[in-house]
């Protein structure tokens, strides 16, 4: 129906876009162990994306598979929260910031854990199965990222400054995760999954202690709102998709 599909795409696209970003570190991380760990996160997120997009395609019933959804949609049809599409490079900076990546990874994995925990009880057994598996992965992601958030927040003066700046950049984008809307309400009413807005207390409960341990100050709420879940993205999204889809679009009819 008209609400299940966007509900699944919001999560599936988030995983896909996050995987795309995480993979940018492969070969470029500060230590070899993190080249491997971030690629691991990317692989897990990609696996979740594939399962969710495949399910979305079946649910849509128009014959689109994971690749049709990943490679043949336009920007406005992607429904990931904007948080996940932001570049690793802070606004105005030149180089990608590892701390920003890990902080986003932490904010998202904490959210994803809360969401998958509820989705594991979904009335839809396929979705429940995906969620049960993903939950374990996200638990590891949240731990790995939280370790780094603490290490870098409570590290040197410079790392503290960078992490606080990253938090101030990223925090406004987390508001979108909990915006209530008709899609979420319908899905929640049908027992398919929770309205994301319900997850805020659980999310805050897992996020706050880590930020505190990392000596980071939580930014105040602002009227800023991103709207990726409604298909209105940031300027970063078009460039991400241009690159991601370039090859698939340049070879119509190809089999890979």
């Amino acid at each position, binding site marked *: 129906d008209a609400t299940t599909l966007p509900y699944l795409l919001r999560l599936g696209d988030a995983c896909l876009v996050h995987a795309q970003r995480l993979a940018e570190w492969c070969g470029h991380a*500060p230590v070899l162990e993190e080249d491997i760990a971030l690629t691991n996160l990317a692989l897990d997120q990609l696996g979740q994306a594939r399962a969710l997009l495949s399910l979305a395609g079946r649910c849509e019933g128009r014959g689109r598979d994971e690749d049709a959804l990943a490679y043949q949609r336009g920007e406005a049809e992607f429904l990931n929260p904007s948080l996940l599409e932001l570049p690793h490079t802070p606004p105005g900076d030149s180089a990608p910031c*590892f701390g920003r990546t890990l902080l986003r990874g932490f904010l998202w994995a904490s959210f994803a854990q809360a969401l998958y925990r509820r989705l594991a009880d979904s009335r839809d057994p396929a979705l429940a199965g995906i969620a049960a598996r993903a939950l374990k992965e996200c638990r590891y992601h949240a731990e790995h990222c939280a370790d780094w958030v603490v290490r870098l927040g409570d590290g*040197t003066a410079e790392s503290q400054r960078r992490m606080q700046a990253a938090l101030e950049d990223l925090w406004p984008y987390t508001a979108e995760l909990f915006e209530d809307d008709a899609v979420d309400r319908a899905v929640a009413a049908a027992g398919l999954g929770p309205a994301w807005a319900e997850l805020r207390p659980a999310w805050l409960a897992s996020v706050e202690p880590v930020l505190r341990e990392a000596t980071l100050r939580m930014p105040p709420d602002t009227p800023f709102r991103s709207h990726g879940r409604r298909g209105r993205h940031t300027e970063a999204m078009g460039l991400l998709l241009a690159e991601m889809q370039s090859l*698939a679009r340049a070879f119509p009819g190809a089999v890979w």
Partner: protein
Amino acid sequence: QALEAAFEARIAAGEFIEAKDWMPEHYRRTLVRQISQHAHSEIVGMLPEGHWISRAPSLKRKAILLAKVQDEGGHGLYLYAAAETLGVSRDELLEALHAGRAKYSSIFNYPTLTWADVGVIGWLVDGAAIMNQVPLCRCSYGPYARAMIRVCKEESFHQRQGFESLLTMMQQGTAAQRAMVQDAVDRWWWPSLMMFGPPDAASTHSAQSMRWGIKRESNDALRQRFVDACVEQARVLGVGLPDPDLRWNEARGAHDFGAIDWDEFWAVVNGHGPCNRERLATRVSAWERGAWVREAALAHERKRAARRAASQEAA
């Protein structure tokens, strides 16, 4: 002298030398050079293939490529660990790489220009690497031999995946895809043959390394075996190999092949290949950009240790 004689006897008996064992300084240095060069090759080798992760044309291929590049990072880890058993730290080895004192495999100074390059690297470059490395699984230095067993197992898997991806494009793909595969084969064939190193006549280090079992077969012998294997695989794929002189020689029971352009080989080894500058600069910049992260991690560790100490004192 007694130590040296015992060492030589163990080598002769085909026994493994272990980290705690006495070994001649030259043996140690040769191993450090070879293992670290191999480790560096793994991490530099993440770059050319990594260049295509963002554009992989299907999610399945993206996952396979990510996992493969991750495995290369893993090989780097085992190999640095093997080198560390010889008393040299990973940071020292990286410093030598970044300063241009240590080498890595020249093949990674060629660019990946199309998606088919990813498949061809799996097929030809990993294929050549395995051919070079399988004998090292029986190398006289235990930690290296054991690392190589694991590396070779994974590389074989990568090689099959590369081949399979090319086969899919050749058999189920469009004409444009087949042309892309052929173009990639044309570009990678000769550099792959160069991976076995200079002709035996021109090869240094070899005699001593053979005697120590750090090297077990000659460059030319391995190269010949590689060519013979590839001809058959190319036929299955339906691609041509870009060598008009390539033909079966019944008398030798092997394929004759054309002359390798050793000028190109030495130009690339000496820093004038297509991507030498970019590869090294990319590694150095990743390392330098990560300095604040490594420093912060150390600072945090010190703080925690201090807090632990303080709380134990208080208790």
